[in-house]
């Protein structure tokens, strides 16, 4: 039998390679975008602010891109012979896949936070002390510089994992029921089934978000308890959805 650690090793290596590639493209895009802003004479004195805002914008875009790429990679791994032929239980395979996604998200987060921190430091040191510079500094301090803290960071790591697992759930469940539907191989039938399952999933997620939202008292000062409660709900969903996915994975074939 294959060791669990070996499966995690190959899974993590491939995910980290993919994430690093996207992060590098992210930096290149930021560099190009930033250089373009320097052509505007009014922006040039506030170049460090422009750099920071460019970084913030593109990091958010690429965070979504990283998640989408992770979803595609994870789905391909779980539905292809490459991983499913390995002599290991589906439970361990699924856990290894989810862990490698989580580690990749942590890695991406760390890199992005470091880059943002350096940019912020640069901004703080070089922003002119005029009205715009002073206004930005005051707004930043007054606002949300410590928003979320540890609780928020945990939610930002658990949420993408939950999203990936929900995509798996839709895919596995649709594939499972298509096997019992006459004409299930036809594209039209597949689309209908996937749409129905996605609709049900979206309805359930919407109700979960309502529950999470109701945990917040509306008072921005006392969010700590609410954030940890939300983390608890998300963690519980990760476990439940993960368990359902493992059950379904044992019944879902690889793609020919």
């Amino acid at each position, binding site marked *: *039998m*294959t060791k669990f650690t070996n499966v995690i090793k*190959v899974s993590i290596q491939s995910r980290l390679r993919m994430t690093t590639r996207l992060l590098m493209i992210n930096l290149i895009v930021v560099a190009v975008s930033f250089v373009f802003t320097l052509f505007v004479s009014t922006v040039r004195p506030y170049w460090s602010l422009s750099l920071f805002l460019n970084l913030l914008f593109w990091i958010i875009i690429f965070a979504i891109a990283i998640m989408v790429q992770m979803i595609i990679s994870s789905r391909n791994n779980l539905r292809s012979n490459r991983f499913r032929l390995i002599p290991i239980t589906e439970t361990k395979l699924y856990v290894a896949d989810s862990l490698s996604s989580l580690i990749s998200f942590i890695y991406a987060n760390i890199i992005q936070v470091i880059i943002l921190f350096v940019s912020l430091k640069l901004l703080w040191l070089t922003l002119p002390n005029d009205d715009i510079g002073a206004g930005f500094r005051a707004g930043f301090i007054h606002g949300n510089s410590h928003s979320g803290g540890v609780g928020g960071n945990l939610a930002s790591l658990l949420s993408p994992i939950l999203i990936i697992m929900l995509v798996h759930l839709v895919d596995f469940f649709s594939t499972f029921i298509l096997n019992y539907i006459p004409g299930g191989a036809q594209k039209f039938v597949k689309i209908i089934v996937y749409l129905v399952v996605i609709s049900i999933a979206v309805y359930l997620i919407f109700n979960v978000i309502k529950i999470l939202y109701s945990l917040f008292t509306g008072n921005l000062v006392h969010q700590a308890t609410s954030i940890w409660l939300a983390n608890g709900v998300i963690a519980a969903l990760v476990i439940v959805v993960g368990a359902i996915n493992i059950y379904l994975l044992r019944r879902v074939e*690889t793609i020919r």
Partner: protein
Amino acid sequence: MTNLVQINNLTYRKNNKTILQDVNLTLSAGHFVGLAGANGAGKTTLMRLIAGVAKNYQGQIMVGGSSDEVAKKAIVSYSDELLGFNRQTTIQDVVYFYQTVYPDFSSERYQNLSQFLKLKNTDRLSVLSKGTKERLTIALTLARQASLYLLDEPFSGIDVMSRKQIIQGMLNWVSETATVVISSHHLEEIANILDELVIIKQQTILEHRSTDDILEQEHLSIEDYFESLYQGDENYD
């Protein structure tokens, strides 16, 4: 003596359509077995079921005396089409993957196969021709020290000369106690190394005979014998 493969009353349906029905098959260790049938007969499906990547069947499939999926996968080497790998992956990285996840993968045997099959470690999957990919698949499959090898149409993209070399080479690469199941449309080329022939027709196993038996009793080549079973069948192409 425990049979290597024991399949009892296997029925498999997909999308509410019966693909295989009441399949019973017994394979012993140390044989080369040809798996023949028309396109769509169920050869690949049968191999996928044995390998454990096709699910939701009725009946029993035992390999090496066990029906546990993980135990079966540990001793079965199935020719994977490398679909799960990114196209920019190099052959070297693919080999690294196999070395890491398969405890029975022999690097030495792979090196020998790689040289014989003229594979370059630095090549990416995206630049490989169909034939080279097939060669890589053969090398990776046979580099494992498995008890059962399942080769699904391994020669489809390979030229005639290379096919003959590879087929003869198989006898040297595989352990005497291992069984190799090969599905191929080029029966005449693999006939020399086959000990047994399994023919799938009408969703079940029509025939399972030793090749010596066919030659002596039917006085036909393996390919002619296979074609005689399909004579008059309008569905055969």
